[in-house]
């Protein structure tokens, strides 16, 4: 009984931490530019796939991970510079279609380079599972949670202690005013996309040993991250973390106790329920529409 519950909880928290990282990526870009980046899931895919293929070529894992994250970061900058920035006056829907086009493009290239097969990635440390009150905990889960926590702390420090972090915050609050005090907002936007891509690729790498990875893994993971971000309230960092963890746990419990066929439906029912009662998510900002 307890063992079963703990088992589902471990699964839920692990995948929830991944969702939280993806949701943070969405939040960051949304705050900086009010764009919902449908290519966010592709950063995950790039992270996982690049690490797998580099280690297969004999590159030590740590270096492979660093290279994969760098690749994702460059991609994030390129996405902002060449796809989002040129479409300045575009509608929200138009921007969504642009990021969808970008995700199809990135996925197409990944399929070209890495093929359509599933790839397996090794655990970071031992394959030996840990037993807690009869439940089995994959050692990789600890890596996911640990790295997730480190990333969240690093983000908080980045936004509160560094000048660049504060510049991003300022731009997200008021772009014109930020420019007036000398912040190069275009630079800041590129930076926001880069950090978001780094977050995505880290999530993709740490979770790859658990879920496997393939060229199309980004679609559903990206959407789940979007759900998590919306549950928390778009634009709220705390909301993204809470939304991600809540989504992961509810999903794992539903899959365990109710039906694994309807696992994905749980996420989408959950977001509908939250939005019915809280149209701006759990932690979303109250905004008054001006006419």
């Amino acid at each position: 009984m307890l063992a079963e519950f703990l088992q589902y909880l471990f699964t839920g928290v692990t995948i929830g931490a991944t969702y939280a990282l993806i949701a943070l990526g969405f939040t960051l870009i949304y705050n900086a530019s009010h764009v919902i980046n449908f290519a966010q899931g592709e950063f995950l895919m790039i992270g996982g796939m690049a690490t797998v293929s580099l280690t297969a070529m004999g590159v030590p894992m740590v270096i492979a991970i660093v290279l994969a994250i760098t690749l994702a970061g460059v991609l994030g900058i390129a996405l902002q510079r060449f796809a989002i920035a040129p479409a300045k006056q575009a509608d929200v829907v138009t921007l969504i279609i642009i990021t969808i086009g970008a995700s199809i493009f990135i996925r197409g290239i990944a399929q070209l380079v890495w093929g359509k097969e599933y790839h397996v990635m090794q655990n970071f440390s031992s394959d030996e599972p840990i037993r807690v009150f009869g439940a089995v905990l994959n050692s990789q889960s600890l890596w996911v949670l640990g790295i997730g926590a480190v990333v969240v702390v690093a983000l908080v420090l980045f936004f509160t202690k560094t000048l660049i972090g504060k510049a991003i915050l300022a731009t997200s609050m008021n772009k014109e005013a930020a420019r007036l005090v000398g912040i190069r907002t275009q630079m800041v936007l590129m930076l926001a996309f880069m950090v978001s891509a780094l977050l995505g690729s880290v999530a993709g790498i740490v979770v790859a040993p658990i879920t496997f990875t393939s060229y199309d893994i980004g679609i559903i993971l990206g959407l789940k991250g979007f759900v998590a971000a919306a549950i928390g309230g778009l634009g709220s960092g705390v909301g993204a973390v809470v939304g991600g963890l809540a989504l992961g746990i509810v999903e794992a419990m539903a899959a365990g106790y109710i039906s694994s066929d309807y696992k994905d439906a749980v996420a989408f029912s959950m977001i509908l329920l939250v939005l019915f009662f809280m149209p701006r998510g759990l932690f979303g900002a109250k905004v008054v529409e001006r006419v």
Partner: protein
Amino acid sequence: MLNRFMQSRLQGLVVLTLILIILPAFLSNPFHYELATQIAILAATVVGLNLLVGFAGQISLGHAGFFGLGAYFSGIATGTYGWPSVPALVAGAIIVGIIAWIVGRPILRLKGHYLSMATLAVGFIIAIILNNERAITGGPDGMPVPAFEVFGWELSPFGTYSLFGLEISGVQAWYMFSSVILLLAVWFALNLIQSPIGRALRSVKGSEVAASVVGVDTAKYKSLVFVISAIYASLMGGLYAHFQGFITPAIASFEFSILFITMVVLGGMGSTFGVILGAVVLKLLPQVLADFQDLEHVMFGLILMLTMIFMPKGLLPTLTAAVSKRIRKKTGGEA
């Protein structure tokens, strides 16, 4: 006289009719007719979706859900229960309309990205149900759908028919049928846009607060247009199922929803004929790109991005703006 015609709202409808009549001269094999029929059905669907997106300014990333529901309702009612096609189509549309009304009320209070999230969720849930209820829908493997029939007269892509003494194939008959359906869909949409309802919708798009201040019941009109666009999708889904003869949950998938919304945005939001062009381009593009094999997706994504970056208003509005600018230059600013 020509001037009066140019200004009339029937102008576009007449041009579209002419195109649909002339087109068969360029269609040389059954595959072409099949494509043209599919395009007509999808185009009619996005004409309905455009009422919601282009005129009322509300986004839907889950419209394939309604398309899929309509398709499966027709398929199950005619195939499993032996209903005649037309009552099945109508009953499906009514049920989908009711579902859209029930989910539309709470959903349409949401704005922007939250609305896109909610519609995406509705579409996803429908697709997941179609995938999992194997006993009724056949699950991921799909299900066969009987040919469309009216009063015992069957319209099958594989049959042959005679019309005014001419012998035509099943796909040709379907092409004519779907062309008529498309024209009806456009005619209804154009009338709706010019009606008081259409004006109310455009006021909602302009500014919802301002619209409600001058007495427009914005919630009512938004739900109404959501239901209308869902009914469009349901009817076209049903026809699509009959034409294809086989359906899988893929037609209700997120990818299909994205295809619909992309047709609207690429063709030109708010332009009824623009979105038809969007349907044509997006359905033909993969055929053209198929020659590039492995590069197909890369090219598709690239073209999508470039078009939206350089023509954010969509293909048709950008093209007509360019053409009328030319004409104005030639006539010295007179027109």
